[in-house]
C-alpha cells in the first residue's frame, strides 16, 4: 500500500538515511513541512533546487532528492543568486541555520534581500552553532550560555524578521517547529511568490542550546513554543525580539510586492538600451 510509505520518502535520498540530526532536533520537522508544501503546490521537482550552507541545517541539501548544493559556510545565498540568475526557470530554496545565514552570511543576507533576489529562504534558528558543539550566534538571546560565551551572551542579538524586513524582503514570517501547519502554509505561499521570501523557524537544538541552558530536551522546547508563542500577523517587525524566557511572536509579518532582481534589471536595461537590449528571462509570470 503506498500510503504506508512516509510522505517524505519520495522526496529524500532514502539511501542516505538515517540522517545525522539528534533526537528532538527541529530540522526534520522543517523537512516534513517543506515536503508537504511541495506536495500541496504540486511543485515540479525537476525545477526545485535546494541550496544550503554549512551546519546541521545545511545538511538538508544532501538529503533532498532534487538538484541540491551544499556550499560554503555563509555563502549559500550568493550561490543561489547565481544559480537563479543563470537559470531563471528554477525554483530555488535556501535552507541555512542562524549562524551560517546571519553571522558569516549576514552581508549576503542583507544584499540578497535588498536586491530582492528571487529566492525562498528558510532560516532554522536554534540560537546556536549546533554542528560544532554549541557556540554563540548573533541570534542567541541575551544571557544565554554557549561554549564561546560561557558566562552568558552579552551582545544584543539580531531580530531576524526586522533584519529581513528592513533589508527589503517581500515576505517575512516566523514560526516555530511547533507551528507545523502554519509553517507549511507559509512555505506554500512563498512557493510561487516572486522575490526574496524569508521564513524564520525557531527550532530546538536539544544537544547544544537546550542542554547548555538547562532548558530540557526537544520536547521541553516544543512545550515552551506552544505555551509562549503569540500569533500576531502583521506585527511590526521591530517589536518581535526574542528574550531568554520570554514570549515568541510568530506569524506572517510582511507580504508585499516589488520587482525581483531580474525584473528590475530588465526594466532598467530596456529603458537605457532600447532595441540594443537582448531581453533576459526573469522567470517570473505576473
Amino acid at each position: 500500500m503506498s500510503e504506508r510509505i512516509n510522505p517524505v520518502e519520495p522526496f529524500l535520498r532514502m539511501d542516505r538515511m538515517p540522517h545525522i540530526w539528534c533526537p528532538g532536533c527541529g530540522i526534520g520537522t522543517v523537512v516534513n513541512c517543506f515536503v508537504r508544501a511541495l506536495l500541496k503546490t504540486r511543485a515540479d521537482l525537476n525545477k526545485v533546487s535546494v541550496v544550503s550552507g554549512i551546519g546541521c541545517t545545511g545538511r538538508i541539501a544532501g538529503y533532498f532528492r532534487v538538484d541540491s548544493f551544499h556550499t560554503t559556510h555563509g555563502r549559500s545565498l550568493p550561490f543561489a543568486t547565481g544559480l537563479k540568475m543563470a537559470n531563471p526557470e528554477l525554483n530555488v530554496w535556501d535552507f541555512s541555520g542562524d549562524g551560517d545565514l546571519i553571522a558569516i552570511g549576514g552581508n549576503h543576507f542583507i544584499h540578497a534581500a535588498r536586491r530582492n533576489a528571487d529566492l525562498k529562504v528558510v532560516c532554522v534558528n536554534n540560537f546556536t552553532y549546533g554542528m560544532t558543539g554549541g557556540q554563540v550566534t548573533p541570534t542567541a538571546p541575551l544571557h544565554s550560555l554557549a561554549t564561546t560565551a560561557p558566562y552568558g551572551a552579552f551582545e544584543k542579538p539580531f531580530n531576524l524578521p526586522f533584519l529581513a524586513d528592513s533589508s527589503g524582503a517581500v515576505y517575512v514570517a516566523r514560526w516555530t517547529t511547533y507551528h507545523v501547519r502554519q509553517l507549511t502554509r507559509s512555505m506554500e505561499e512563498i512557493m510561487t511568490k516572486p522575490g526574496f521570501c524569508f521564513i524564520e523557524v525557531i527550532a530546538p537544538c536539544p544537544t547544544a542550546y537546550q542542554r547548555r541552558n538547562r532548558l530540557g530536551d526537544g520536547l521541553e522546547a516544543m512545550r515552551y513554543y506552544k505555551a509562549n508563542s503569540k500569533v500576531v500577523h502583521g506585527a511590526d517587525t521591530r517589536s518581535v525580539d526574542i528574550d531568554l524566557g520570554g514570549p515568541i511572536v510568530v506569524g506572517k509579518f510582511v507580504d508585499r510586492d516589488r520587482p525581483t532582481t531580474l525584473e528590475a534589471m530588465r526594466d532598467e536595461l530596456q529603458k537605457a538600451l532600447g532595441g540594443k537590449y537582448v531581453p533576459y528571462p526573469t522567470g517570473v509570470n505576473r
Partner: protein
Amino acid sequence: MKADPRGVLTGVHFLDGDHACCEGALAAGCRCAFGYPITPSTEVVERIAQRLPTVGGVFLQMEDEIASSIAIQGAAWGGKKVLSVSSGPGISLMMEHVGLAAMTETPCVFVNVQRAGPSTGLPTLVAQADMMQARWGSHGDYEVIALCPNSPQECFDLTVQAFNLAEIYRVPVMFMMDEAVGHMTERVVIPAADQIEVVERRRPAEPPSDTYALYRCEPGSRVPPMPPVGEGYRFHVTGLTHDERGYPVMNAEAQDRLVRRLVDKIRLAGPALERYEEYQVDDADVVLVAYGITSRVVQRSMQLARERGLKVGVFRPVVVWPFPERRLRELARQVKAFVVAELNLGQVVLEVERLACGTRTVLAPHAGGGLHAPEAILAQVEEVLR
C-alpha cells in the same frame, strides 16, 4: 565548435588588456559574470556590465569578492560559462571558493590582474607576486590551470583558451594577467566567429535515472561529464569529500580516491596542458625564464646579450600551472644556467630550481611597482657567465 557570432566583436581594435579580456570571455561564450571593483581589474567588469546585456547575458556586481566567487559557481551549475575578476586582496578573499570549484569540479574562470602586494600594496602598479597563490592559495590538495598572457592580444586569445580549458578539465582556471598587460593598450585583432574554437560542456550521455552518478567518469577519463540542472538528474553537489554519487563520505579511502583524481586530472594531463614559447634556446648557454609582462622585457635582454656575443635564449611558459616540467628538465640538461626574471622576490624560480636538478638557477627579482630594466637582467646573465 565555433564561437557564437553574437559575442564576437570581429575587427581590428585598439584595446587594453582588461578590455580585451572581456571580449575574449564573450567570444568564448561567457554569458554570466559576477564581480566587484578593484584596481587594476575594474575595467574588465565595467566593460562586461556594458556588453553582456547586449548579447543576451547577465552581469551583477555583488556585495564583495566572496559573493562574486561563489555566485559564478551557482551560475555555472545553472548552465552558464562564467567569469569573475579581481586583484590581490580580492583574489585572497576568493581563495576559499577556488577550492570549492576545484572540489566540486565547477568550470569557471578567475581573472587576476596582479598588482603589488602584500595587503593593499600598490593598487595601481604591476607585480607578479600571486603566482604561488594561484596554485596553492586555497587549503587542501587540488590543482588548477593558470595562464599568463603578455599582451592585450593574448588577453583576448588566451581568455578563450581559459574558458575552453575550464570546460575540458572542470577546474577553476586562474587567468594571471598583470597590471602592465591589463592597462597596456595595443592592437587587438578579433577574428570572425567561425575562426574561434570554443569547447562546450560535456553532458552525460545517459538520461536521468536512479543509478546516475554525478562524478562517475567514463573508462580512461578522469573528468566526469557535467549534468544540466533542472532536467531530472537530481544530483547533489557538496564541498565535503564525496563519492562517485556526490554523497559525502567521511573516511580516508574516499578522500584518497577523490583527491587523487582531482589532482591527477591536471598533473597527468601531459602535453595537452603544455603551452610555452621558446626563443633561441637551441644553442643557449643561459636561458631566461619569464612569463607575463616580464617575458617581453627579457626579449630585449636576450637581444642585448646576443649583440654582445652571449648565447642567451628565452623560455616563456604560457600555461604556468601545471608548470611545463618535461621541457624544463630537457633544457636543464643542455644549458649552463637559468635566469628567472619575475616581478616578485622568488616564486616561479622555485619550480625552475626544482626541475633544474642542479643546473644553476638564478633569480632576477623585482619587488613590483615597475618593470625590470632589460639591462638589469642582462647584468645577471653576465654575472652568471663570468
